[in-house]
């Protein structure tokens, strides 16, 4: 397992971090709200450009190593968030009720927003795998175990997984800064919303929120970290006992209504 010490990957990261931090924070006002651009996003985008297969700079093997290092490097971030949370334990307990309730939103949100749209545009059983959760690794395992790795349900889940891996962090951080700058929500509500249960997405969203609300940046990290931890801890359990059966239940009742128009024209597609 010497591969974690691949010098090429670490050297690229070092250079990317230096460039990204040097550029610093920029904010772009687009009328309805503001979009925050910050070092994390530059590092993500520049890294993605370097990795494009057409440039032949990184091999598939090296990109695989980068993704392995990503998994363990996130633990340093978790440790940092933990050290912010320790002194705030009383505040976290005070907000305990809301912190617990908003988790319902994390688990229901993917289904409520995703399933009707999936059915309206003509997806069938793929819609279940695609929308029952945010489809990170543990969720893929649940679907594969229940329906098999080659099932339509698994195809849907893997599709959302790939989209999330590629664009999730970037999309959600732009969305978070936009929603935050509209001013409807309290920074702490948004921070809890950012605890979606995926490392890079949560980090990027927390960053965006911290730029929009600089005075609350540490509290944002505390509550985003706490929500993310809860989502991660209860995630697998909730997905098995609630999310998947509930998505199936909704599919059974909604598909005949919402999927009607698309039944003929999209057969065999997807």
């Amino acid at each position, binding site marked *: 397992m*010497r591969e*974690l010490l691949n010098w090429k990957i*670490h050297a*690229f990261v*070092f250079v990317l*971090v230096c460039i990204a931090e040097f550029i610093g924070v920029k904010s772009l006002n687009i009328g309805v709200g503001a979009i925050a651009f910050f070092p*994390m996003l530059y*590092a*993500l985008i520049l*890294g*993605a450009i370097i*990795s*494009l*297969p057409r440039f032949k700079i990184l091999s*598939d093997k090296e990109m*695989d190593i*980068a*993704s392995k*290092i*990503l998994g363990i*490097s996130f633990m*340093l*971030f*978790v*440790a*940092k*968030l933990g050290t*912010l*949370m*320790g*002194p705030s334990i009383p505040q976290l307990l005070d907000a305990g009720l*809301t912190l617990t*309730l908003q988790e*319902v*939103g994390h*688990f*229901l*949100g993917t289904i*409520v*927003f*995703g399933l009707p749209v999936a059915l309206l545009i003509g*997806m069938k059983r793929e819609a279940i795998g*695609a*929308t029952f959760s945010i*489809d990170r690794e543990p969720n893929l395992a649940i679907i594969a175990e229940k329906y098999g790795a080659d099932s339509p349900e698994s195809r849907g889940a893997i*599709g*959302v997984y790939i*989209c999330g891996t*590629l664009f999730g962090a970037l999309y*959600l951080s732009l969305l978070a800064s936009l*929603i935050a700058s509209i001013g409807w929500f*309290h920074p*702490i*509500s948004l921070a*809890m*919303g950012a605890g*979606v249960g995926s490392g890079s997405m949560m*980090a990027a*969203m927390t960053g965006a929120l911290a730029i929009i609300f600089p005075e609350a940046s540490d509290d944002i990290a505390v509550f985003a970290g706490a929500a993310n931890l809860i989502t*991660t801890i209860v995630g697998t359990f909730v997905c098995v006992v609630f999310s998947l059966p509930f998505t199936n239940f909704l599919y059974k009742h909604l598909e005949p209504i919402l999927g009607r128009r698309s039944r003929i024209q999209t057969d065999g597609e997807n």
Partner: protein
Amino acid sequence: MLDKTLTFILIGIIAIVGNWIGYGVSPIDALPGMMIIAAITILGYAIEKIVPLKIPVVIWVSVIALFVTSAIFPWQQTIVDATTQINFMALATPILAYAGLSFGKDLKEFKKLGWRIVVVSLFVYTGTFLLATLIAEIGFRLTGQFK
């Protein structure tokens, strides 16, 4: 374990430099905090390896970090003071750089996907964020917290 430890040291050095460029914290001031954060992480992995329960490492790392910075830990203040020197944004920049460098890996698979799944994925990610935010906001308004 050794390769993980060395990797954390490498990422730690990168984060310290980023923390210096981006937030003006000198590497000498940042070093103790970074060493503590790395030590918490390494300890988390060690405990996960030793304890025969199926508890993910993210929980161990969180529990240790929470414990050593909570009021019941005797050296709480020292640890909080040291780790405050590391801006959490500076620590996240290298993480997203590794994420970026693995981008090309899934691009081939992505090109095989239809447009439908891309649209649905955007709704899925929007939904989980917005609905949780909305419920938290309602909760805070009802309880009168965080006005």
